[in-house]
């Protein structure tokens, strides 16, 4: 690392530490006004007496504050249980809203300077570090990836993974402890949607910033490769506009939150009653959203996947893919390439697809009949199981938290039901394939090593067979890192895909014994 890179990294780390420190900067005082503003009126009446001892008491950390708050609500609920008045029990989660409303002090007053001193400084530092890459001549620069503990599952990688896992657990399950962070992005949230920032707005902001900053890193790292540049600009654009700005503006216009590029079954609650109700009650735009959402996966997926392969979505449009291809790029080499991993992957990812289809069928059954149960199975418990295990744990905690441990596509490879669906189309009916260039492969292994989906690309390349795999997201990195120009992502008539290796590789003129050797998929 040169001095500029070190400076950038240093600034990034200072910004990061300030950001962590902001968690300790607030004080928390519950007042009557806070309760009135944040509780439903009946809950206010129910909780006010029991919360009296907490009122106007100042807590130094969100932990003490939330302990007392949770204990009080528990106590009230237990009382109802004893009196057999469970209908009065309070199940709403007020922890985040009350913590944020009760917070005061420097974090609330100086949130803008603190934003710049933390997140702002980290961005500047990261960009300085990244821009220093321009000093190198353009070309593949993977030096020292396996010498660096960050990118080779060493102690730094484990620390980063642990941080990401903890971050996701907190965002999903304990947002009250990071209420302070939402103050930092309050001004942005108010500017876009007119509402204060929730933990999800904070998450969306960080997610978008990660894609943009690390997207710039990709643009510089691959400035000799226009496929990578165009693809990276595409994921940056879709994240910033569709997933972030447009979605927030819809909220400002009192319209349903909608990410026009997300679709069922990745967007697994698309057919939940609350969502269908919110769309059907939002006039023409709501109806358009409903039709658009259904058309995307019924018409869009087969059509575009036939024409261009899975990549049109997974490495050009998708938000999960966008994060994987930018923030996750330094970890792509950590995916497992073994045959065993491929076997596990096929069971898991198609298993999740079956799960989401069954769940959605149950949800629609409930929607149309009003019955919550089919036999002993309740559609509500099925959807909450899916939401917890797949929606939160798998796609979030494991999907991103395991970047530095299992590579950047853990979710896409083992868990994403949409990837499974698109993959089936790609495998059986698509013009897409990765062509291998005659006999030029030297079996070096760069392609397999840098395949984020764990495809053993070399296995195909060295036998002259096209790579036609359900999981391939078409990121194009195998082609980029190939030192001999062997691999190329191409679209052509589906029948021209070479699915069976030629008997003799190009360059050897000995007679072919088996003339059917170059069979293709139209002949199968």
């Amino acid at each position, binding site marked *: 690392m040169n001095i500029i890179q070190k400076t950038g990294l240093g600034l990034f780390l200072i910004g990061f530490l300030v950001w962590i420190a902001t968690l300790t900067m607030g004080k928390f005082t519950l007042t009557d006004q806070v309760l009135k503003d944040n509780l439903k009126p009946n809950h206010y009446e129910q909780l006010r007496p029991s919360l009296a001892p907490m009122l106007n008491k100042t807590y130094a950390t969100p932990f003490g504050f939330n302990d007392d708050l949770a204990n009080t609500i528990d106590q009230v609920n237990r009382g109802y249980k004893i009196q057999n008045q469970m209908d009065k029990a309070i199940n709403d989660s007020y922890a985040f809203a009350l913590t944020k409303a009760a917070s005061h002090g420097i974090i609330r007053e100086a949130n803008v300077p603190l934003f710049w001193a933390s997140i702002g400084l980290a961005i500047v530092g990261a960009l300085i570090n990244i821009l220093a890459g321009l000093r190198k*001549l353009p070309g593949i620069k993977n*030096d020292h990836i396996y010498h660096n503990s960050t990118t080779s599952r060493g102690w730094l990688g484990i620390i980063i993974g642990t941080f990401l896992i903890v971050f996701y657990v907190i965002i999903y399950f304990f947002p009250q402890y990071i209420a302070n962070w939402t103050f930092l992005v309050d001004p942005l949230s108010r500017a876009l949607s007119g509402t204060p920032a929730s933990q999800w707005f904070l998450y969306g902001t960080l997610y978008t910033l990660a894609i943009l900053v690390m997207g710039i890193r990709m643009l510089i790292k691959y400035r000799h490769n226009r496929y990578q540049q165009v693809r990276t600009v595409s994921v940056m654009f879709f994240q910033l506009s569709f997933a972030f700005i447009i979605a927030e503006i819809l909220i400002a216009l009192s319209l349903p939150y909608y990410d026009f590029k997300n679709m069922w079954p990745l967007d697994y609650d698309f057919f939940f009653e609350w969502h269908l109700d919110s769309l059907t009650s939002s006039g023409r735009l709501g109806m358009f959203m409903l039709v658009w959402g259904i058309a995307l996966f019924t018409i869009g997926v087969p059509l575009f996947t036939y024409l261009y392969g899975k990549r049109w979505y997974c490495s050009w449009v998708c938000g999960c893919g966008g994060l994987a291809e930018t923030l996750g790029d330094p970890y792509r080499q950590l995916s497992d390439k073994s045959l065993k991993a491929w076997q596990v992957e096929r069971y898991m990812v198609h298993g999740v697809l079956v799960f989401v289809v069954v769940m959605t069928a149950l949800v629609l059954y409930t929607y149309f009949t009003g019955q919550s149960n089919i036999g002993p199975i309740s559609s509500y418990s099925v959807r909450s199981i899916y939401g917890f295990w797949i929606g939160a744990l798998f796609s979030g905690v494991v999907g991103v938290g395991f970047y530095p441990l299992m590579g950047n596509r853990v979710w896409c490879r083992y868990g994403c039901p949409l990837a499974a669906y698109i993959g089936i189309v790609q495998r059986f009916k698509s013009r897409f394939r990765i062509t291998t260039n005659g006999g030029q492969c030297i079996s070096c292994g760069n392609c397999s090593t840098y395949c984020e989906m764990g495809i053993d690309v070399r296995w195909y390349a060295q036998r002259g067979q096209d790579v036609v795999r359900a999981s391939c997201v078409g990121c194009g990195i195998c082609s980029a890192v190939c030192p001999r120009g062997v691999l190329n992502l191409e679209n052509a008539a589906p029948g021209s895909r070479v699915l069976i290796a030629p008997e003799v590789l*190009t360059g*050897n003129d000995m007679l072919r014994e088996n003339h059917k050797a170059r069979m293709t998929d139209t002949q199968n």
Partner: protein
Amino acid sequence: MKHIVIVGNGISGITAARHIRKHSDHRITVISGETDYFFSRTALMYIYMGHMKYEHTKPYEDYFWEKNRIELKKAWVNHIDFEQKRLLLDGDASLTYDVLILAVGSEPNRFGWPGQDLEGVQGLYSYQDLEKLEVYTKGIRRGVIVGGGLIGVEMAEMLLSRGIEVTLLVREQSYWNHVLPAEESALVSRHIQAHHVDLRPGTELAEIRPDSSGKRVGSIVTNKGESIECQFVCLAVGVHPRVEWMAETPLETDRGILVNEYFETNLPDVYAIGDCAQHRQPPAGRKAIEQIWYTGRIMGETLARTICGTRTPYTPGIFFNSAKFFDIEYQTYGEVAVPLPADTETFFWEHSNGRTALRINHKSDAGAVVGFNAMGLRLRHEVCERWIKEERSIRYAMEHLRDIHFDPEFFRRHEEEIVQTYNSTHPEHVVVPRKKNSFLSRLFS
């Protein structure tokens, strides 16, 4: 069922083993002292630079060999008793064979320079060389590389990745100019210098001198009398077949193990393939010893067929090869001879960026294309091969340039500029390049 013993687990030996297994039930044993498993020798540089670890360079998972009943034995072969059909291995073990395939590879050349046996002087060929390199280059300031070939430039890239300054001594007046025509040679030389390599054309090694310890390299002296302080010397002046250890046996050798077109040596049931084989009568246009990955693979494929019962001569097709000079990929197809033969003309185009170029050599009479050189461009192997075999004319090639293009999508296309360059030098017959088919016609093709 015969016992086929293959000495050497490089690309030639392993290709032979895999293809023999595909088509027969023979017992197969592969012996190597170098590594337990087959790995890609061409990837050694990437291990050193940290792009990959050794395990990533193994083209097959470890279970593959047992599953395919290919027995692997890690041992050096010390002697072969061809009479008894017996190999003597390390530690007095021995092994008998019915059929023996020698795929023992090469070793780096050393031309008897004073000081060539000092610590810190080595070549780069084997896994053991890589291990030595790690030790010798730890914490050093400057390395001198002797030899302007493919290994020399790879070694330069490797050392630079560790922050080691590099001096590259090239005997010729320009990098690799006995293989690359002048323009390509100049292009690569410029690129090497852009990476801050101290490139010294027309310079040879005269002597390697020790440092104060007397054991380790401390400097070198060139044939021009210059002294260059360095802590490491890489001898990258080619390789030669590893045959000296068999000198006292009835096996007939010259520079390599002499074979006929069926890879048969002078001894019954003994074959030789890959780097170590020397053809008594090489196929037209090919060298007697060709130390190329692809050549080794083709030999392995071909010999396997003979072993499995169909006696098949060595018929390599149109020549091809590839390399990468730092960031510039190089592919070649057919014959691009230096100097240009009298009956051949050449067309050369170079982009103004100075890193991208295409050469097409063709016959003077009917214009049949005979060879391609591509720098910073990827060409489609099958199409280049077909055009050469079908003796397509240079005009045809210009009209159909789109078909040899193999660069990734969205890359800048150069066909128009290339054809313009061609037309400007051949104004008598202006070529109109064939247009890309429309999206719809491609869709329904």
